[in-house]
């Protein structure tokens, strides 16, 4: 009954309008590299003072999960991830575009996101607050074990050479240590430069490696268009559709529990979903060449993570990331205290926000699906016209997170690095994974060792389970690699 009342209230004209505005803005923010949901939410936050509290939270929430829909567009079409969570989507999405299947990739990304978003909201409605309590059992040792398990993904992302994959992963981890140590305040690898004290931001690194690097490689290869010829069908069919939908469900199952954990970023869940797909696939060697599961799973996972994040935020007052922290700030601005009290004293508000998420997912599907054909045509535009625009957007994207030209130089530097990595067959995804996971991994490791030394990992049941899973997973991955004929692996393009 509460949910029904919430949905009915969410369907009021004003709430519907706020939901629509949030979803549109979110999609645009997701498409533009560099402009993340957190920065846009912080810009919009003062403006929401003029709206009623229900409408403003609906709009902010719509913007947040809308960015997960939009982030896939540039990843698939141009190999530039709109968000960090869309990095795995580039691996197969862009290859699909090169084969004239951009429409199918965009279609499954939108539908996969819808499936994940809807299932996520359903879970939120019925089992959410209960599940959130399990998130509290995760301490530093559990996080360390989970992140250590995540690092086994380096094996599956390594492509032709495990050593190269580990090398770039470690380079990513090392680059993430540049700056000020968060525990002690000492500087590391800054070489006396003030600019490096803040370390490298993720966005310039990603924009450089993927966006600028791709342009430079294409310029050297003399690529005329991303795809030449007639575009394929806009919608996948038959066995491919079935595989894509199954991958979406699996991605949701991966992304949702991870979204409950404070500090767990959507990028990690999309990488894990991609890795899982590769492990369960009968043809893991095809990943990276344009398989639909490689797009469906990470997109579903990052959307499920985004939806799941609302549960600990509303039920326990624990935001799982910077964007949700801003939405939490908005709640507190209106005098709404997150926690069990919120569910008891502001029932209509809570269920209206949850109801608006159902509607928001439908709106996003309606917004994104008709545009699939239009977006897919971008792959036919000659590169000579497309490349300057992409470079211009990359520069803005690199500058926008911290408003410093240093980040733009960093993007250029990583662009040149990305070009050389492509040329010499060094995989790029492990570098990004290492860069993202490195700080979290270090934090969890050092906190755990402070708590109880090395034995603490063996004394906590969740931690030891995850560590055993890591060993098992690594063994399986290495055996898989040995099973795949070497010629097949070497044919894989990065």
């Amino acid at each position, binding site marked *: 009954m509460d949910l029904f009342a919430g949905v009915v209230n969410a369907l009021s004209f004003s709430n519907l309008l706020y939901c629509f505005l949030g979803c549109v803005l979110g999609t645009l923010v997701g498409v533009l590299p560099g402009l993340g949901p957190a920065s846009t939410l912080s810009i919009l936050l003062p403006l929401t003072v003029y709206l009623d509290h229900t409408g403003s939270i609906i709009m902010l929430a719509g913007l947040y999960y809308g960015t997960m829909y939009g982030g896939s567009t540039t990843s698939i079409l141009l190999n530039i991830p709109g968000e960090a969570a869309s990095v795995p989507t580039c691996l197969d999405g862009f290859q699909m575009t090169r084969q004239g299947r951009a429409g199918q990739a965009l279609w499954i990304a939108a539908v996969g996101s819808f499936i994940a978003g809807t299932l996520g909201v359903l879970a939120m409605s019925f089992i959410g607050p209960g599940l959130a309590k399990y998130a509290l059992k995760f301490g530093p040792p559990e996080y360390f074990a989970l992140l250590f398990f995540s690092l086994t993904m380096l094996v599956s992302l390594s492509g032709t050479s495990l*050593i190269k994959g580990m090398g770039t992963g470690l380079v990513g981890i*090392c680059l993430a240590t540049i700056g000020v140590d968060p525990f002690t305040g000492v500087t590391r690898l800054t070489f006396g430069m003030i600019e490096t004290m803040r370390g490298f931001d993720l966005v310039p690194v990603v924009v450089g490696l993927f966006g600028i690097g791709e342009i430079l490689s294409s*310029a*050297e290869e003399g690529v005329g268009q991303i795809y030449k010829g007639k575009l394929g069908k806009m919608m996948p069919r038959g066995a491919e559709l079935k595989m894509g939908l199954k991958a979406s469900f699996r991605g949701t199952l991966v992304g949702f529990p991870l979204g409950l954990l404070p500090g767990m970023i959507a990028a990690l869940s999309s990488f894990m979903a991609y890795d899982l797909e590769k492990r369960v696939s009968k043809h893991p060697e095809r990943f990276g060449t344009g398989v639909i599961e490689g797009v469906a799973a990470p997109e579903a996972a990052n959307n499920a993570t985004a939806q799941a994040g609302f549960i600990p935020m509303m039920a326990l007052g624990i935001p799982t990331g910077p964007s949700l922290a801003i939405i939490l700030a908005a709640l507190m601005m209106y005098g709404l205290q997150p926690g069990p009290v919120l569910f008891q004293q502001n029932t209509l508000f809570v269920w209206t926000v949850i109801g608006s998420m159902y509607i928001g997912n439908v709106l996003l599907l309606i917004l994104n699906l008709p545009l699939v054909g239009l977006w897919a045509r971008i792959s036919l535009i000659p590169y000579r016209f497309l490349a*300057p625009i992409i*470079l211009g957007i990359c*520069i*803005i994207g690199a500058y926008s997170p911290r408003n410093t030209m240093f980040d733009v130089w960093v993007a250029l530097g990583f662009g040149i690095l990305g070009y050389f990595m492509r040329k010499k067959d060094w995989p790029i995804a492990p570098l990004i994974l290492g860069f993202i996971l490195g700080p979290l991994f270090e934090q969890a490791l050092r906190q755990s060792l402070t708590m109880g*030394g090395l034995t603490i990992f063996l004394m906590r049941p969740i931690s030891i389970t995850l560590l055993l899973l890591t060993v098992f997973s690594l063994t399986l991955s290495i055996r898989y690699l040995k099973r795949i004929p070497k010629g097949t692996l070497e044919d894989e393009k990065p």
Partner: protein
Amino acid sequence: MRYRKTHLLETVLLLLMGGISALEGVRLIIRKDPQTAHDVLGPGGYIILVGLGLIGVGMSHFLVNGRKEGNKKETVVNKEMRKQLLGIILTLFLYIFFIDILGYLCASILFFCMILWVLGFRSLRFNLILSFSISIPLYIIFVRWLNMALPGGLLFS
């Protein structure tokens, strides 16, 4: 066994990065604040582990991949395409350099003009029209609508 030059360079870069990280770690351990003794690993310990990992990978790359790649031929690149690539890099370099001086809008107009020239469009009038057509909408979207504080340069600050 012959090793390709690039393979040797890759190995050297990995070993260099690993070595620098490890040395930085040693420096941090030597200068560790006694009040942070509870932090078992410390900032230095962690970075030493990463550095040693890089050194290990560098050595493995030299020994294992060197054998696999030793006989691979270098791909031949078209000189015109190589020139275009260098032109793009130089244009980007100049663009980023001049953004702070000329401001985002002026630098962008010049950048788009130059990059279109590098990409093969030799008509100055066409390049200018296209430059303005790209720069101005980007400026309006990001600076005016999204309130992004892009550099105004010395002329407009």
